[in-house]
């Protein structure tokens, strides 16, 4: 069995708490842990989703200006928030991987990218479906929409760049640099409605003032955002398990793990 450098480091020299962090930062220990966590995030996503859809369709009132069309908000805002949030998390993992060289970090960044791209695509698609009846156009090259489109391209670029490099460690490094440079786009998206005159409305929810929408609308939106969040975590954990197996299939522990799963499945 090959020695695990990170593991031996944590056991011998690191203090206890960070030692435990290092312990879970190795693919070998994270793989079964992720497997145990996935069902909880699925259940949470389902519960938040049911509650959010119920409030969104049956409790939240009709909007005075936009009629029923505003209900697109219950998927549009969660998808947009998650597209930006996942990018920040992905870039953070990529940065940690670049700085510390931990194997799991690059895998986490790689696992998050497709889900982030999906959220950005959903944000653009639902925004387009909302823009058509409200603004009279599917698309306009304004600051908010353009910067969100760039976010989508950053995800696609990250995925394509990693796919183009055969050596996973080198792919992680190249991807990490792209991800970190692209971080500058996230505040641009977020503040675009303040910095520029755009067709897109300002944020309905802010940390500094009370929200400019009905309480039930806000509650439905937050529940849907939690649903999308839990979904994204479940999906990232499922994908990172696949990536761990793809990259570490030559190791002893993967062999033991797969044999264990096989015998569990037979019981």
């Amino acid at each position: 069995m090959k020695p695990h450098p990170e593991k031996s480091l944590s056991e011998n020299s690191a203090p206890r708490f960070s030692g435990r962090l290092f312990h879970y930062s190795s693919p070998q220990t994270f793989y079964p842990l992720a497997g145990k966590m996935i069902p909880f995030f699925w259940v949470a996503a389902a519960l938040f989703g049911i509650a959010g859809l119920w409030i969104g369709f049956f409790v939240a009132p009709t909007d005075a200006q936009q009629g029923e069309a505003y209900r697109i908000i219950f998927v549009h805002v969660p998808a947009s928030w998650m597209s930006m949030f996942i990018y920040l998390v992905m870039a953070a993992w990529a940065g940690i991987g670049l700085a510390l060289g931990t194997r799991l970090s690059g895998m986490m960044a790689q696992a998050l990218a497709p889900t982030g791209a999906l959220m950005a695509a959903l944000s653009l698609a639902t925004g387009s479906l909302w823009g058509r009846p409200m603004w009279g156009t599917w698309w306009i090259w304004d600051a908010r929409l353009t910067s969100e489109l760039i976010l989508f391209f950053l995800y696609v670029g990250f995925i394509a760049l990693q796919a183009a490099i055969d050596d996973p460690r080198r792919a992680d490094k190249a991807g990490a640099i792209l991800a970190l440079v692209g971080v500058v786009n996230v505040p641009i998206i977020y503040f675009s409605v303040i910095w520029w005159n755009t067709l897109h409305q300002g944020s309905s929810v802010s940390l500094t003032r009370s929200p400019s929408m009905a309480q039930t609308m806000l509650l439905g939106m937050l529940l849907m955002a939690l649903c999308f969040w839990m979904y994204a975590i479940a999906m990232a954990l499922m994908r990172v398990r696949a990536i761990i197996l793809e990259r570490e299939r030559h190791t002893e522990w993967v062999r033991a793990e797969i044999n264990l799963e096989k015998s569990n499945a037979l019981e």
Partner: protein
Amino acid sequence: MHWNSVAEFFAMGGYAVYVWPSFGACALLMLVETIQVKHRYQAAVESCRRQFATDQLDNKTL
């Protein structure tokens, strides 16, 4: 509840063609992603099994 009938609910005040595709796109893409990731995981497990089988064969011949 503010809907008077099921038909009124699905009509979405005349915005049905915008509201339902929005929710449909989310449901569809999330379903596709889930299936895709499950396939990827199963393919990875299969690939590991094949790897072990060839390793065992190599060990025997050696």
